[in-house]
């Protein structure tokens, strides 16, 4: 049969920077802990196994700078370990509680996974950056970066310096963390607007990703649709998302994750069991929350749920991996008959889909990688870098301004629920540029204040806040974060301008909003 084309799986891993030194039990901080246990460590576990068994593979992972910063933060590392130890304590109890019930097998799975998590976490000195770097260095995964705080860049382009700074800091952190320049970037929310690629070019980023219509609706018709990259006029490549393969995984109705044998997300002992039993493992104020211990399968559309059967679920994951591969084979056979080069299918996903939401997702991914390696020779896994090395000549178009959000453009991040943020974000960005231009060679306290201003601005720019506001739930936290960082910025601006910097307050901010320790505010200086 022979090779008919490539599949590039892209996982985008990101969580907003959430770190509250003042309170160990901040609910939002748990997002990180859950994602570590359910998504990031299971991925590392897969890489470990595949490497041990000599299974060759290629995978692209974007690790956002806030996530990388949280991985490397000692306070969060310690807190995660505390969290994990509590989980393990609960897992031991659960194994006992469920013996001689249909839930026992599942309890054993959880216990094993949690012990495994602790082993892996400690093995990498509590810093998962080390783990991802290891598999990058062995050539199995290509790690790319994302904007510094996941800013929604097209809506920040009123101050191009602010966008440039988002890229600059991201690339800088990537180099420090992974020892090399990132080859490409995941644009936050796949959000692109013409001209953004020029800034990427300045930092030697070779490629980024777009939603399907970002490529399809380009200034000229793309000859190969989304099955080959296009070059922006700057020479930076854009890869378009394949809608067919995305849908198979994403769609809750038609996609794999909704299968009746898979684990049900919304039946958690944090809500289901006696208050006294779960009390030590939920929020100290007694708020019931997800513990991660879930014993039912999706079963069907009603509220009736059957016990989860881990073996049956794994069989399904294997079946679905086979189905996914089979469909890619068909797709590539068809595409290659129409194209005069090998097509590439690009399938980007939120990394947190795997494991957190779709519990069996990581297993599915592992099965898929193995099957692609051993069961066929039509599809080959690749990364965008490898594809560009093989096919360096591509069509030049200006991609269409777009995002992968609802309706495909900017509306999610610019609607009536969040439009008010832009007048403040734009003004703050302009003031940051003004500061950088006004104090070209600051030192001492002023230097620190200027750097902290840049951090506060960047934290306010996270697309996550606007996104949460648009969903209409848990809005308060997002509003508070936006306002707090903006207020901090405005106060720092005034203090710097008035030459009266309150050192105590600055120190508090530096300790609290402590990401990007290598920040140098001069990246905001206007280009002369």
């Amino acid at each position, binding site marked *: 049969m022979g090779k008919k084309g490539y599949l590039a799986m892209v996982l985008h891993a990101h969580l907003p920077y959430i770190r509250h030194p003042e309170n160990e039990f901040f609910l939002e901080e748990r997002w990180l802990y859950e994602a570590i246990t359910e998504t990031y460590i299971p991925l590392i576990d897969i890489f470990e196994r595949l490497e041990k068994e000599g299974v060759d593979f290629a995978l692209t992972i974007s690790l956002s700078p806030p996530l990388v910063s949280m991985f490397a933060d000692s306070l969060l590392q310690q807190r995660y370990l505390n969290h994990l130890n509590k989980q393990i304590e609960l897992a031991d109890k659960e194994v006992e509680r469920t013996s001689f019930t249909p839930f026992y097998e599942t309890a054993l799975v959880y216990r094993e996974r949690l012990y495994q998590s602790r082993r892996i976490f400690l093995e990498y000195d509590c810093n998962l950056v080390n783990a991802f770097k290891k598999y990058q260095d062995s050539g199995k995964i290509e790690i790319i970066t994302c904007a510094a705080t996941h800013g929604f860049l097209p809506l920040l382009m009123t101050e191009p310096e602010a966008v440039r700074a988002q890229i600059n800091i991201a690339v800088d952190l990537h180099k420090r963390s992974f020892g090399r320049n990132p080859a490409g970037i995941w644009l936050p929310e796949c959000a692109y607007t013409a001209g953004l690629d020029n800034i990427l070019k300045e930092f030697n980023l070779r490629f980024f990703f777009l939603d399907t219509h970002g490529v399809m609706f380009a200034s000229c018709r793309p000859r190969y649709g989304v099955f080959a990259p296009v070059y922006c006029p700057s020479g930076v490549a854009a890869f378009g998302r394949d809608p067919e393969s995305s849908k198979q995984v994403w769609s809750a109705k038609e996609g794999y994750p909704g299968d009746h044998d898979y684990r049900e997300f919304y039946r958690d002992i944090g809500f289901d069991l006696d208050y006294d039993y779960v009390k030590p493992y939920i929020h100290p104020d007694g708020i019931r929350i997800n513990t991660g211990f879930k014993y039912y399968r999706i079963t069907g559309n009603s509220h009736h749920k059957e016990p989860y059967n881990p073996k049956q679920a794994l069989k399904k994951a294997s079946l679905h991996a086979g189905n996914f591969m089979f469909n890619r084979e068909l797709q590539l056979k068809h595409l290659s008959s129409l194209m005069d080069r090998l097509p590439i299918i690009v399938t980007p996903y939120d990394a947190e889909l795997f494991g957190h939401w779709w519990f069996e997702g990581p297993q599915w991914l592992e099965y898929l990688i193995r099957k692609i390696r051993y069961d066929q020779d039509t599809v080959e896994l690749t990364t965008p870098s490898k594809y560009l090395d093989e096919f360096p*000549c591509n069509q030049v178009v200006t991609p269409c301004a777009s995002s992968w959000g609802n309706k495909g453009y900017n509306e999610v991040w610019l609607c009536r629920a969040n439009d008010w943020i832009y007048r403040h974000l734009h003004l703050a960005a302009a003031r940051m540029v003004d500061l950088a231009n006004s104090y070209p060679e600051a030192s001492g306290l002023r230097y620190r204040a200027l750097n902290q201003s840049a951090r506060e601005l960047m934290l306010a720019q996270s697309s996550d806040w606007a996104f949460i506001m648009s969903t209409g*739930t848990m809005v308060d936290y997002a509003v508070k974060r936006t306002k707090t960082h903006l207020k901090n910025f405005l106060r720092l601006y005034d203090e710097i301008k008035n030459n009266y910097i309150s050192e105590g307050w600055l120190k508090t901010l530096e300790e609290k909003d402590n990401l990007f320790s290598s920040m140098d505010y001069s990246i905001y200086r206007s280009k002369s």
Partner: protein
Amino acid sequence: MEMFFLSWAIGIIAVVSIALLWIRKIRLKTMGSSPVEEIKPLIPDLKEEFSSELTPSGPFPEDQLPKEELPHSYGIDRLVLLARDPYWLYAYWEVTATKIAEFTSTHSAWETSWPALRVYDVTGIAFNGENANKYIDIGINDQADNWHINTGEPDRAFCVDLGRQFPDGRFITLLRSNTVTTPRASLSDREDEEWMWIEGIYRSIRHQYGISSPLFAEEVAERAGIIPLGVSSPGHWPEY
């Protein structure tokens, strides 16, 4: 991250809904034997875009939080225009007291005029205030400091003036925005193709043909012999 946030958010909704259902069940039971209305499953519709509205949008954050937290104005005259999608623009502005005083001293009283946005279609031109392809006026109110503007026109360039309209039809501009272009919403009808070689491959070509700039794609492509994959050389090149 969306995945993550939504699962949490839906979790909270699910709990509340189940609680409500329970209350409802109890009520129905006490009322008689009518069947319990089944509540819709709370699994999100995770098609391509998982940012779809999962819940009716709640009250806007402005209503929930004290307004004085962030400055309402910054003492800067500005009108900023953003493209939301192929059909909508968003504009926000601030007019300083100085600007208003300046205006009233030159053009009669503020009260005899009313505020309006003039939305210019400036596609393909260097706009000088007079040469727009066309424009529309949108009457607004004095309290407004931002507006969602429906243009209904993808792939067009727009510029907006905030101004005052007088009974005699005059429109006096207070502030002018930046120019933005709405995104396309369909396939381009341009099929002319341009191709680019990059990096290693290109260097060998430069050596061979003596082309100076590695990104000077036209020159590469014009040499029909080296155009990749048998793409024929089209007659004209797109402008970027």
